[in-house]
Structures are given as structure tokens and as C-alpha cells.
């Protein structure tokens, strides 16, 4: 695969060039109009906005929504796809030449996805506008067609992102996460449509009128993103305090959290539950901060004590009560002799118990992956839930196969 890494973008660029030529050749609009639309898309493609899933949307979504609505007195499909092709191609070239490393890293897949989505939008728009025009007349037809085509685009964008982002977590989970991005996508489509509607009447005031409300939303998304990052960084730093104090093995909380999150998505937990798993896994050993108290050094402690102390500390944070409960139960067996599975024990606690044991075996006891899995399998009678063990096995074997 790696040998063809540079081939893909080249093929894509050639395709864009071809579509641009054919589109402009078929177009009834002037070359100037198509070029202006292309420049609009190219510029917009360089401005991105972070969404809650981790995907980054670009303003090209807005521009590519506006272009089909604007170009031509009657709909001009050739002009629209020509402008889209010109726009994404020139945006990509600019990014390759002047973009930062961070931007160019994902540029290839982002532009491929976005340009294909834009073609889909244009195609669905032209088809639906014709169909809707027969039912409800031309006045409402363009609005109905734009909304429907935007839904198709959003579906494609989220689906394609979930399929191409591989991060040790399940695709189904990524898809669920991507659907939570709807506010960002919605605001981009809305600002594109708004611009298309007001441009003929307002002229030069149109960009101002369209961008004022959008910039409000943009700032909100951007700052929410920063706040989310800050929050998880804070949790991570707090979780590492016992490690830097030498009370708990270095990196254990990070590794346990990574594995737990992967398993949680594998087992089909929803985004909120996965977040709880992440926080609880990071903080599961925070109770160890208590270990350097003199009387504890004298009296000794059990695993359950650490779970209790940790949960006491976490429950001081009002937004983490759920996490505190999960940490409290992190050592409980999923089943006791002669009984059935404990239905009250939350899945996240079971995941953390097994993931922490796995990391302990590989990192501190020096076990190989297979030996560590064997530890989990042997404990599957009472300690580790077989479903969770199976999840860990799947994730770990997948990781082995990749490396």
C-alpha cells in the first residue's frame, strides 16, 4: 500500500482536472463566473472548523453548497461541478505548497472526501430539483432539493470519515460519534444557502450578512473544541500525579485508558459511556496518592482501599460522580461462586478491571501478549467477564496483526 501513497492524490488531481475541463465545456455560464466560484471554494477549503468527533470540517462545504444554488439562471450542472473541481484542486495545491505540516497530513483524504461529497450534492440537487419542481412548483423546489441534497452530503461525509479513520476503535462507534457533528455541518450548509439567497439582492453586503451569524457559530465551535481538549488534558494530568510521585507504575493509566476505550467501543457502548470509561480508566489508580501517608505505610492496604480512596477523591468533583461510582467498583468480581453474573456491576468497571490487569501483566510482570491473555482467560470464571476478555483479545490480536 505504502508504495502507492503518492499515486492516489495524483490520480485524484487528474480526475479533478478532467471534470473541470468537461464541466466548463458543458457549462452555459461564463468562464469568469465559474472561476470566481472556484476561487471561493478554494479559499473556503483552507478554513477549517473542529467538530466534536475529532473530524475537521472545512468552509468548502458552505461554498460548495452555495455554488450550485447560484450558478446559471436555470440550473447549470456543468458549471457547478466545474467550479467544484477547480476549487478543490486549487485549494489542495495551495495547501500542499503553503500549508502547515498538521494541515497537509490529512489533506489528501479530506479533499478526496469533500470533493466527492460536493459532486454528490450537486448531482442530488439537480435531480431532486427537477423532481420536486413537478410536485410543488419551482418556488419551493430549490429549498427542498437543497435540504435533501445536504442530508445526503452529511451522510456521505460522516460515513466516509468513520470508514477512513482507523484508531483502534470500532467503525460503528465512529459513525455514532460522527453523527454528533450535525451542528457544525448544519451551520455550514445554512451559511452556504444563506449566502446564495442574499447575494442577488444584497450584492457586496451578502458576505457580511452571511458571515456575521456564521462567525458567531464558528467561534463557539472552536472554543468548545478547545474546552474539550483542556478538560481531557486536565483529567489526564490529575491521573498522572500518583505516577510522577512514584506511587504507581509510569504510564499505567494512559495504557489502561487506551485499551479500555478500544474495548468499550468494540462492545458497542455509546459515546457518552465511552467517555465515562476513558475518565474512569485514567483515574482508576488516583487513590494511590494516599499511599505515602505514614499510618498507611504501617498498616498496609488492599486493592479495595485504593478503589475507595480514589472514588472519594473523584466524588469531590461534581461532574464526575458517575466516574467515581465506576472507580469504586473496579475490583468487584463479575460473578461470585454459585451465583449468576452480577447484573448491577456496570460494564465500564468490568472493562477497567480487565484492562488494568492486562497492562499490569504485560508491563510489570513482563508477560508476552499471549501470556497476559492467558491470565485473563484463567480469571474468566469469577474476576473477568468473558465478554470483556473476548473484546480485549480481539483488540490486542488486531494490534499484533497490524504491527
Amino acid at each position, binding site marked *: 500500500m505504502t508504495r502507492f501513497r503518492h499515486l492516489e492524490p495524483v490520480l485524484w488531481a487528474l480526475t479533478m482536472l478532467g471534470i473541470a475541463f468537461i464541466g466548463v465545456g458543458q457549462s452555459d455560464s461564463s468562464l469568469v463566473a465559474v472561476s470566481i466560484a472556484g476561487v471561493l471554494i478554494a479559499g473556503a477549503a483552507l478554513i477549517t472548523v473542529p467538530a466534536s468527533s475529532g473530524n475537521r470540517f472545512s468552509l468548502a462545504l458552505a461554498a460548495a453548497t452555495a455554488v450550485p444554488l447560484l450558478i446559471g439562471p436555470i440550473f447549470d450542472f456543468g458549471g457547478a461541478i466545474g467550479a467544484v473541481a477547480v476549487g478543490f484542486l486549487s485549494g489542495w495545491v495551495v495547501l500542499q505548497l503553503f500549508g502547515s505540516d498538521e494541515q497537509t497530513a490529512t489533506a489528501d483524504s479530506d479533499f478526496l472526501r469533500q470533493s466527492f461529497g460536493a459532486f454528490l450534492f450537486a448531482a442530488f440537487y439537480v435531480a431532486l430539483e427537477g423532481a420536486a419542481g413537478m410536485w410543488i412548483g419551482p418556488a419551493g423546489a430549490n429549498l427542498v432539493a437543497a435540504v435533501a441534497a445536504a442530508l445526503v452530503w452529511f451522510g456521505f461525509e460522516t460515513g466516509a470519515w468513520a470508514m477512513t479513520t482507523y484508531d483502534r476503535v470500532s467503525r460503528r462507534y465512529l459513525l455514532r460519534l460522527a453523527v454528533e457533528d450535525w451542528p457544525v455541518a448544519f*451551520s455550514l450548509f445554512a451559511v452556504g444557502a444563506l449566502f446564495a439567497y442574499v447575494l442577488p*439582492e444584497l450584492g457586496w453586503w451578502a458576505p457580511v450578512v452571511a458571515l456575521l*451569524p456564521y462567525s458567531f457559530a464558528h467561534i*463557539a465551535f472552536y472554543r468548545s473544541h478547545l474546552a474539550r481538549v483542556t*478538560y481531557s488534558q486536565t483529567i489526564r494530568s*490529575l491521573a498522572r500525579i500518583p505516577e510522577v510521585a512514584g506511587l504507581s507504575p509510569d504510564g499505567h493509566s494512559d495504557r489502561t485508558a487506551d485499551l479500555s476505550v478500544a474495548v468499550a467501543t468494540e462492545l458497542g457502548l455509546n459515546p457518552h459511556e465511552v467517555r465515562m470509561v476513558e475518565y474512569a480508566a485514567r483515574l482508576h489508580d488516583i487513590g494511590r496518592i494516599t499511599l505515602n501517608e505514614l499510618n498507611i505505610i504501617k498498616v498496609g492496604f488492599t486493592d479495595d482501599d485504593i478503589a475507595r480512596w480514589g472514588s472519594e477523591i473523584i466524588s469531590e468533583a461534581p461532574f464526575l460522580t458517575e466516574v467515581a461510582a465506576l472507580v469504586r467498583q473496579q475490583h468487584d468480581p463479575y460473578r461470585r461462586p454459585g451465583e449468576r453474573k452480577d447484573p448491577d456491576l456496570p460494564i465500564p468497571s468490568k472493562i477497567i478491571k480487565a484492562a488494568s490487569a492486562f497492562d499490569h501483566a504485560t508491563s510489570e510482570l513482563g508477560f508476552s501478549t499471549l501470556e497476559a491473555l492467558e491470565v485473563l482467560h484463567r480469571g474468566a470464571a469469577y474476576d473477568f467477564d468473558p465478554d470483556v476478555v473476548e473484546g480485549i483479545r480481539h483488540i490486542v490480536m488486531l494490534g499484533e496483526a497490524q504491527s
Partner: protein
Amino acid sequence: MQAVKVRLAIAYAGLGAVALGIAVATQEFPPLRDWAPFAAVAFLTVYYAVEVNDHLTASPAAMIFLATAVAFGAGHAALGAAAISAVTPVTKSDIAERRVALSVINWGQTVVAAVLAGFVLEPFFPAGAWSQRDFPLVAVGAMLASMVYHFVNFGLVTMAVRIVYRKREVRPWSRMGSILRSTIVMGFVGGLLGATYHLVPVALPFIFALFGVGYLAFSSLSQLREAQEATLRGFIKALEAKDLYTRGHTERVAYFSQLIAERMNYRGTRLERVRWAALIHDVGKLAVPRDLIRKRGRLEDGEYQQLQVHAHVVEDLLAEVEFLRPMVEIASGHHSRFDGGGYGGTGHAHGNPPSQEARILAVADAFDAMTSTRSYRVALSQEFAFQELRANAGTQFDPEVVEALVQSVVETGERYGSPNLGSEEAARLIAEGKGRQ
């Protein structure tokens, strides 16, 4: 106070009614299909008010009142805006806390301000059909109207607070600049949106939808921020509670730092930063072996070094959180002396003098250390602490900061430390059970 509030509420309601009456007498009510959607949006905005931005102080409701006034156009502006402001006086928290009188007062002042703003707008409307060439004039008119709206509103609020609480200085005038700026921005945006409605009515749902989505994101943002602060606070509290002698220390140091910083005219983000630095200034000790922290008597040189190393490890960890980095810098600089020297801190390491924020934290920390009981001595008196701080001003402490602390603590009328224990020696003897207070 309740009687005063009720009388004031009646007076303001009367004022509002008179203003509404004048608008009804001179203007026509706008068509209901124009009025209803604007009213719904304005109501929702006020009801679900979120803190949007530290720099935009004024409520976004004003922007919607202006947009409606412009959208309704000549002959309708004042009555339309007033009729909308009249249906939106309550917020969610008003209902939750049953603040009836306050809501009525709010209603009165909002209606009066909206009517006046509407009349200010009238001369700026184009005579015939609207075109994009009218936009600049309408925008200027809306900015003027926005200023009128805010100043009338501001004046009435100030008056109400003065009458009810008998306070003379209500809001510091230093914030006038930012209020004026946001007023102008809101006026401009409101005016443009209203004018857009005349030319492209279909654009309005899109605009409101965009604002709505932005609003949602901002409200989740303020929730996240709250969660962030609550989490850090909770952890610090929980970890601190394990040590009997320093319980409440960080909270008090944060409070003293805030007192000093406010007196030295810190506002907004800068003030927050000092408060946060105070909250985290002692996290470093979490990684230090307890026997060292709780040791009776003075630390030996080797132990002292160990303390510094451990403190730095945790500080580095917190500095990984980008948001906390400036606070960590302040916190780690607070052991540096005003004249250079002392242990720890980037300030010392680079040979730079500590920042003013770090100097504030140093004084607040020292004051609380002296006025609270430690493992090796009981609390000293407040007067003694002031004396000590002043004696070391210019060398260890910044004289300006010390004076700010003394003045602001005296002003609050609060007292810290023991009533009359004026010597370090005596305090130590009492703690060792050899003396009597």
C-alpha cells in the same frame, strides 16, 4: 427592603406602561406574521440566556430588539420593539428563584429602553422601497439606537440598584469601554439583520438557525468550563483534605490573591488567572513524601532540595494542560523573592524577577501561612502578619502588593489569625506544649 422593591417595581412598571402607551398612540402595530417569529426568538434568547463572551458584556436580546425594530420599519419600529421586549422579561433563573419584583423592574426598564431606541431609529429609515444602498444609513441608525437602548437600560438598572441596596458605586466605570464596544457591534449586526429581512425575508430563518446553533455550542462550552473548574477544585480539595494542617489553605490563598488583584485593578482573564494560579500553587506538594510535608521543625538542606524537585515534577505535569500553563508559571514563580533569589520558579531559574502575579501570590501565601496554624506553631495575629510583611517589603515582597493586601483585608473587616499572638517564638512554644496563649 421588600417594601422598597415592591414600590420600585410599581414605579418601573408604570414607566414601562406609559412608554408603551405613547408608542401605541403614535404608531401602528406591525403585521402579526412579522411580529410572532421575532417575539418567539427574543423570548427564547432571554429565557435561555448563556454567558457568551467576556468581551461582549451586553445581552444579545438587545440585538434582537434592534433587528425587529428595523425589520418592522417606519411607523412600526418603536411599538414593534416595545411589544417584543414586553413579552420577554423573565429568565429561567428568575422563575427558579421566584424573583417577581425583579422581573417587573426588568420589564419596565426594558420596555422604556426599547421604545426610546425605536423612536431614535425612525429618521434613518428610507422613504420608499428598500435597496442595498440604504444599508449603511440603517446600520448607523441602529448603532445609535443601540447606544440609546443600552444607556437608558444601564441608567435605570443603576438607579434601581442604588435605591434597593443603597450602594453608591454600582459598576466600575472602567468597564464602560467594553460595554460601548459591544453595544456598537450589537447595533450594527441587529441593523443589518433587520434590513436583510426587508429585501430577502427567506434569509431570516437561516440567520436565526445559525445563531441558534452557535448558542447551543456556547452553552455546552460554558458547561464544560464549569466542569473543568469544578473538577480541578474538587481534586485539590480532596487531596488537601488529607492533610489536617493545610486544609482550606489553597481556598484562602485564592481568596486573598483575588482581594489583592482586584485592588490592583485586575479584571477579567487576568484576575481569573491569578485566582487559578493560587488554586494550584500547592499541588506540587502532592508528590512530596508526607513525612516531609508534616515534619515538625525546620527542613534540612537535603530535604529542602527534595521538596523543590518534587514540586517541579507536578508543575511540569500541569503545564501539559495548555490552559493551565500561564497559571503554572505564576504558581512556580511565587517562591522567588522580590529582589531575586529564593527557591524554585522559572523566574529564579532564568534570573528574572518574578512577575507581578507571582508577587501577589507570594504575599497571599505568606499571609495565610502566618495567620493559620501549622504543624510547628500555632497561628499568629493579623497585626503581626502585617508587620512582618511590611518589614520584608522591598526585599522578599513587593511593597505595592503588601499595601494592597493590608488595605483590602482591613476594608473587608474580616480578621485572620489568633487575636493577640505577636511573636513567632511564643507561637512555637505553644505548639510544643511549653507555653500558654
